[in-house]
């Protein structure tokens, strides 16, 4: 299994990326996709592929890879295969930040992203503070519970904000809460990529430290890793990744939870290959989810977050029966 994982993952990602360019409310042939991308033809199909579907596919890849790698890193640092940015309140915090910014009239995506990141960091700080109050900063169950609490609180904040917000902001906020790639443009790609790619690169750079941290704090210390500092750094980078995906695509749950668990064993278990495999598989999974979201009730689109939740919840239950 380990031998074939890389060709399989790369082939699946390539196939789904092409499918993402071909299928949608209007099907486009493979030949037209080729003409649109390589020859740059100006037909309707060409415009659809170049300006609507291509950025959507690229954004799906960035968001899916970001969520899956963020989940992998958080699971490694917390030593728990059921951690993910969604359950830990990171995504909820990012949504609060983004919605508050939109409700206050901020329209520039980089500023919204910044607000989302601030919200995510606030949520992480709140989760760690709650866990510290419970005098169990290292207890994963407490962290997950604190994450759920902070997430619920974040949700309430969003609702309170929306009561007084104008109708446009409410629609925008609903979009955040449900997740969608429906309005993806090249502009979204241009500001998302510079956040996601470096953060993902940092996590891979720290992959060996995550391996050591996953042994436990005392064992990490005996291998010369300052567990507290290293974990905090990795937590921050993972939060930045998750926040960037939330601002780009709204709340898309379960990708960060499922994907690491799917790829960890075939990738061998060390975190560098696991992170890389999770990036590829997460991108593929999000391309599948987005294809389902835009084709199953075409020309209507169903929310992306709903698709990933419908796939993720049964997985979660199956996982609880047979943990790693």
């Amino acid at each position: 299994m380990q031998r074939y994982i890389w060709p399989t993952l790369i082939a699946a990602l390539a196939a789904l990326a092409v499918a993402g360019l071909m299928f949608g409310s209007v099907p486009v042939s493979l030949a037209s996709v080729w003409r649109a991308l390589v020859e740059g033809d100006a037909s309707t199909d060409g415009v659809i592929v170049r300006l609507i579907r291509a950025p959507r596919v690229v954004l799906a890849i960035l968001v899916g890879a970001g969520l899956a790698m963020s989940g992998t890193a958080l699971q490694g640092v917390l030593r728990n295969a059921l951690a993910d940015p969604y359950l830990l309140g990171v995504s909820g915090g990012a949504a609060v930040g983004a919605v508050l910014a939109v409700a206050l009239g901020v329209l520039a995506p980089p500023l919204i992203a910044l607000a989302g990141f601030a919200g995510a960091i606030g949520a992480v700080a709140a989760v760690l503070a709650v866990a510290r109050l419970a005098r169990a900063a290292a207890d994963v169950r407490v962290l997950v519970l604190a994450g759920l609490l902070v997430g619920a609180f974040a949700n309430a904040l969003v609702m309170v904000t929306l009561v007084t917000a104008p109708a446009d902001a409410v629609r925008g906020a609903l979009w955040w809460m449900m997740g969608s790639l429906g309005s993806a443009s090249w502009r979204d790609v241009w500001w998302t990529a510079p956040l996601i790619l470096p953060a993902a690169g940092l996590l891979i750079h720290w992959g060996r430290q995550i391996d050591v941290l996953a042994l436990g704090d005392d064992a990490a210390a005996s291998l010369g890793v300052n567990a507290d500092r290293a974990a905090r750094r990795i937590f921050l980078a993972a939060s930045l990744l998750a926040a960037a995906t939330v601002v780009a695509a709204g709340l898309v749950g379960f990708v960060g939870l499922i994907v690491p668990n799917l790829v960890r064993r075939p990738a061998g278990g060390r975190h560098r290959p696991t992170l890389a495999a999770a990036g590829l598989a997460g991108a593929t999974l999000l391309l599948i989810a987005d294809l389902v979201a835009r084709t199953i009730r075409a020309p209507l689109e169903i929310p992306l977050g709903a698709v990933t939740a419908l796939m993720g919840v049964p997985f979660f239950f199956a996982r609880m029966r047979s943990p790693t």
Partner: protein
Amino acid sequence: MIDVRDLAVTYPGTAHRALAGITLSARRGEVTAVVGPNGSGKSTLVRALLGRVPVQAGSISIDAKPLAEWKPLERARRLAVIPQREESAFSLTVREYVGLSRYVHRSSWMGERPEDRTAVQAALQAAGVAELADRRTDAVSGGEWQRARIARALAQATDALVLDEPTTFLDIAHEMAVFELLHDLALGGKAILLVSHQLNLVARFAHRMVLLHEGHVIASGSVGDVMQAAVLERVYAWPVVITRDPAVGAPTLVPLRSGRVRSPGK
């Protein structure tokens, strides 16, 4: 090479001192065993060597340099510690798991070098887990896991090795193999600091012993100095006699039934 002077540790939020000024050292070429009842401060001492407990007074030095002045990675090249408990959250092959300790010798993007492979293979063999190298860490028994952890510490290739109850879960043969291994490693020039509840095996294999009780050093010195019935009976709050191991002649502790308290030495 490990020198602990008047070390005092109090955990935050608690009044009593986990360690109340202890002095001991572990020298190259010797197995130094730390014994004592549960809660006597043994594991606190181990965590202090990792810099993971608040030190109130006293000092720890490694090769005459204070612990705090060592960079964590440089310290990890001198001193390997096997903590008492460690769950592996995610499974790896035993070989990969043992190879994690080579982290301290490689920079972040350096690949596996021949010397890393050699060190890992030697450690696997020394700890008796070479034939488990390709098994996954979640598919080995408790005893095999303990030995894999010892292999990991050996692959770290340090001069000092600290082990906190390394023979828990091991049967007699594997326990003996670990004690023999530690003895051999000491004769090969390493400083071994061993925390153990196995007084009788310690008495056979250790060069020096330190008896801890409620954060104090009650006795330290040669095995004969520490294996004294009067002292052990008081520290463990249980009647004991010290006899001689019929096979090798080492002092051996025999706990008595609590109803038949005899004063020792009569």
